[in-house]
C-alpha cells in the first residue's frame, strides 16, 4: 500500500515542476538495525522519487557500503541524504513524516535549484563563517 495518498502525490508532483536540476536521494538502510523504519523510509523515498524524472534514488547498506557511509557520515539508520549537483550536507535521520515531509520536499527543490531561500545579508554572513557548523534539528511528526 502506498504511503502517499493520491492527492499528496499530485500536490508534490506540482511542487516538483520547480525542479531545475538533478537531485539524488541516497538512502541508508539496515534491516538488522531498524527493519520497519528502514522499509517505510525506503518506500516513502521511492514514492517521492517517482514523482519527478529529475530525482534518482540509491539505497545503500552502511555495513556493506562502508566507504560511502563513512564519506556521507551515517550516525544511524534510516538516513536519507538529499544531494543536488553537490552534497550540500542535508540529512534526514528517521522517516520525514508529518511536518518534516514538507521540509523534505523543500530540501529537494532547493537542492535541485542550488538556491538558498535566504536574504542577501544572511548569505553574506554565511560566506564569512570561520568554522564548520552542524545544525541538528530534532522534531516529531505532529
Amino acid at each position, binding site marked *: 500500500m502506498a504511503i502517499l495518498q493520491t492527492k499528496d502525490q499530485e500536490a508534490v508532483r506540482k511542487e516538483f515542476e520547480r525542479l531545475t536540476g538533478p537531485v539524488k536521494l541516497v538512502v541508508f538502510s539496515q534491516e538488522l538495525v*531498524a527493519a520497519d*523504519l528502514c522499509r517505510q523510509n525506503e518506500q516513502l523515498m521511492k514514492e517521492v522519487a517517482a514523482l519527478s524524472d529529475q530525482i534518482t534514488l540509491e539505497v545503500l547498506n552502511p555495513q556493506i557500503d562502508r566507504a560511502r557511509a563513512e564519506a556521507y557520515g551515517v550516525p*544511524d539508520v534510516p538516513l536519507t541524504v*538529499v544531494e*543536488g549537483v553537490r552534497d*550540500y*550536507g*542535508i*540529512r*534526514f*535521520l*528517521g*522517516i*520525514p*513524516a508529518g511536518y*518534516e515531509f514538507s*521540509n523534505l520536499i*523543500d*530540501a529537494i527543490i*532547493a*537542492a535541485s535549484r*542550488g*538556491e*538558498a*531561500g*535566504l*536574504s542577501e*545579508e*544572511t*548569505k553574506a*554572513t*554565511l*560566506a564569512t*563563517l*570561520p*568554522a*564548520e*557548523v*552542524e*545544525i*541538528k*534539528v*530534532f*522534531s*516529531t*511528526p505532529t
Partner: protein
Amino acid sequence: MRLAQHMAIASDKVRAVAIEATEFPELSRVYQVMAVPKIVMNEHVQFEGALPESQFLDAVVRAASGDGHR
C-alpha cells in the same frame, strides 16, 4: 529545518541534519530534547522553538565562533 537546510545550501561550512526525535529516543535523551523543534549547533549552542532568520543566523555565527550557550 527549513532555515538550516537553506543555510547548508548557501554555505559549504554548514550541515543540516533533521532528526525524528521519537524514532531516536537515545539521541533525544543525550541532547535533552523536551520540546520540539530543538536545535543543537556544534553541540554547544542549543535552543527550542522556531527563530526568525536573523536570530537563527546569530546562533550559527556563535556556533562557528565557538561561543557558549544560547
